[in-house]
């Protein structure tokens, strides 16, 4: 091909490109939604993570366990004279007995008193073989926390329900939500996964109808202890609870 021909071809291609460029704005429709893409992507990420954080995460972080025996506090409350302290008593040295030992149960249930299958289970699985009942403790604090029941019940004269809620009125044991990381009960963090909610002792301010609607106690975190201590003018020094 000669040099002249090359020039001609080049010029022709150049004209064609110019013509195409000139026609392009006419072919594109206006895409006004494009500016929404970042918002949509941001929003999707936002909603998905919110869903994970608020809905899926709580289901993963807590596993559910059941008490070895479905215990009715209300039935037992009716049968005893001294309320909670009939079974959850203070020992002579002032220490708190906590969850009753098998021997306490066996005082009445050495033999079946009724026909409740749970009672039969108690006698067969625990009383007869003399095996302690592996109760799951809802209110068990981490080992680094020192807590004296005597200081709160005897000295500060708090009601049991102030921290434990109306567990004394319950007919059944509720599932024990166990934190898979720490092993402690969900009752400590509180049932609001955001960690917000009423302090346990606010139960006492509710009227009975409102209180009866609540089936579980509120939270028992360090801030809650601190708040109550502050309100009551009790020391909030570290060593009060962390020996």
């Amino acid at each position, binding site marked *: 091909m000669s040099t002249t021909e090359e020039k001609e071809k080049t010029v022709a291609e150049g004209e064609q490109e110019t013509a195409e460029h000139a026609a392009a704005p006419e072919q594109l429709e206006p895409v006004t939604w494009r500016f929404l*893409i*970042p918002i949509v*992507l*941001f*929003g*999707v*990420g*936002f*909603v*998905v*993570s*919110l869903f*994970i*954080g*608020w809905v899926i*995460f*709580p289901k993963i*972080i807590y596993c559910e366990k059941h008490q070895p025996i479905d215990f009715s506090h209300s039935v037992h409350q009716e049968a005893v004279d001294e309320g909670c302290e009939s079974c959850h008593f203070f*020992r002579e*040295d002032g*220490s708190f*007995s*906590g969850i009753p*030992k098998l021997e306490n149960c066996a005082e009445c249930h050495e033999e079946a008193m009724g026909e409740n299958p749970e009672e039969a289970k108690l006698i067969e699985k625990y009383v007869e073989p003399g095996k302690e009942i592996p109760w799951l403790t809802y209110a068990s604090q*981490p*080992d*680094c926390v020192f807590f004296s029941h005597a200081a709160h019940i005897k000295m500060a004269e708090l009601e049991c329900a102030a921290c434990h809620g109306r567990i004394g009125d319950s007919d059944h044991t509720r599932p024990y939500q166990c*934190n898979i*990381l*720490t*092993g*402690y009960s969900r009752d400590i*963090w509180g049932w609001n*996964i*955001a*960690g917000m909610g009423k302090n346990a002792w606010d139960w006492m301010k509710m009227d009975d109808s409102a209180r009866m609607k609540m089936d579980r106690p509120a939270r028992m975190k360090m801030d809650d202890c601190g708040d109550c201590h502050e309100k009551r003018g009790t020391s909030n020094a570290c060593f009060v609870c962390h020996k």
Partner: protein
Amino acid sequence: MKLDRRGFIQFSLGAGAGITLSPLPWKLTDDFSIWTQNWPWTPVPRTGEVTHVNTVSKHCGSGITLRKVGDRATKIEGRKGYPVNDGGISIQTAADLQLLYGPWRVPGPLRRVGKRGSGHWENISWEKAIGDVVQKLSDLRRKGKSHTVACILGSDRGTVPQLFSRFLKAYGSPNFIRTASCDDTYELAMSLMQGAAASVAYDLEHAKYILSFGCGLIEGWGSTVRVIKAHSIWRSGNLKERATLVQIEPRLSNTAAKADQWYPINPGTEGALALGLAHVIIKKSLYHTDFVENHTFGFEDWTDDSGRRHIGFKRLVLKKYSPNAVSRITGLSAKKIVRLATAFAKADRPIAVWGRGKGTTSGSLYECMAVHALNALVGNINKIGGVSTLPEVATETWPKVDQDHIARTGSGMPRIDGAGGSRYPFTRYLPERWPQIVNGHKACLIEALLVHEADPYYTTLDSAAVARAFDRIPFVVSFSTLMDETAYHADLILPNPHYLERWEDAPTPTGLQVPILGLVRPVVSPQFDTRHAGDVILTIAKRLGGVVGDAFPWEDYETVLKETIGDKWDTLEEAGYIEEADYTPPVWENAFATASGKFEFYITAFEQAGMKINKDLQCLPHYEPAQPEGNPATYPLILIPVELTRLANGAVGNPPFCMKTLEETELKKNDLFIEVNPKTAAKYRLSEGQDTMLETPRGKARVLVHLFEGIMPGVIAIPKGLGHTAYDDYLAGKGVNTNSLMGVTEDPISGLSATWGIRAKLTRV
């Protein structure tokens, strides 16, 4: 729609914002913080009812208070007000819960299935285990070999050792052996010099000048806590009131470091020094004239009924043990000897105590007598702040054993260790001698060996000889609570409950001057399938039947204990102990049950027992050099074993907590350090931490050098209590068992081991 990079970032920003506004990060942070403060694998005490119960430690005889949460024992503390320790506690007892709950417990009756010592066992029932023992003992008795049965125990006092002793008597064997301690020699010395068949007792609390011949007073000598508390008394008050402690020892031990004066002397020459001091006291007439002249025998020269003249202690000492002569032996200057003797004799309430280290070795009888002679010279026998014999709380006596022909014949046979025979008529047990005798005979001398609360496989001198002796015993039964070396090399283990799980009496701890009977009681429910050794012996006896069964009329061990204590049981059970606080030793006129009725410097009992006495020297305290085994040319150094407070070296292995208290200059991982004086190190071109081979005529071991100016040049030392092969990694394979490097140097008069060291060499590797 394709998600490009920009889109992904936009999505991530949204996700980040969403997560931030969700509880996830905050909740996880909180949970992590709780998790990190409460590691789930860290054991924490259980919660529950806290109770405190009192019992007595079988290790040190101290009263203890056990803190329990529910049935779980969580802490052992010293019992306040208990006469022995008054709130104090020894380090080993404080760590005892690790042994109670540790994996070294024997979980139930075990029968060996593999080669002995291979550690292969099968679990068997108590019925079968006891059946095996009964079968074996029954066969031996039927064949007239009852005397080939031996028992080795850690003590001969208290109801359980007495049951074993009674069993052998009814069965027909003389071979009850007690493991070695300085009590062996002390009992002999007290028997010969004072005519008292009892151990020694010291009124340490009231002594004002304590002259200690190598005793590790704050290392565990005597009753550990009691002596440490006495040390506190010595140190209390102003300078005039406080007592003086003088330590004579070739090494700067803790006791030496705490002493007012420390005199390092050549090892093994303590007896010579005691006689040198006696020389000065006699020469200067500083002795207690009333006691020596009126209540002792053999001080002056004397003539017997046949008119034969005998030399007395005074002449012997004045002639042979001048300060200069003793200085040459001991390495201590004559001036210091004179000064020390004068200070001791002139002191208010002086007392001389003997027994190397914790007192876990027998020692030389003459050396012990020489030291005790110092007490006689200053007249502190049965006096406040002095020395007496150990009394026991009186208990009910058991009915006499009716022996049949086999029992009489068997019991009348010579003992396997040679004790009580014509050669050593006064010695009751020779615990270091039986392995040599067993190994020296072609015939099988011990057909069955029962071991209770002792670990002879580990604690007996010359480990190689002990291992050979064990190999020659066809049937070894251990009653051990823990899987110790003897249990590990036994054929059958019948585990005894831990002392926190059982009843037992605790007789007066060694060295105490007031009779005390403590009650060991079950304060923790049994952790394993164990059975009380007392009950097992009763069952074996009953199943053997005949006179053996008849000798044990009791239903069970608890009945034995209650009937033995008798009327005092209620008091004992309620208080946990019986103390005869108003006891005072007899006055000098009635104190001595010797042939002369006096304290004997010259032992008359030897001739009366028919022993061949060639010269008076044999009957008087004198110095007989107990040369350490080995050729000085080949082995230029002298190795001495030392005992530490923090390292148990008896029948029970050191608990893990105590192992952690060993310093890095004592044990580093599995390597043991040997103490070497810098001068010795320079001579042999050794440096700190140097890897060396320690060799003695009995064995060798790899050790690391630790330069220590507190040990005499030419002397090297390693601690006792390491080199275990049983237990597990926390104790096994760490360091060296000193007994594997030591031989037995027999004391010529008692037959007991007078070993205090051995010649050794160090070679760089």
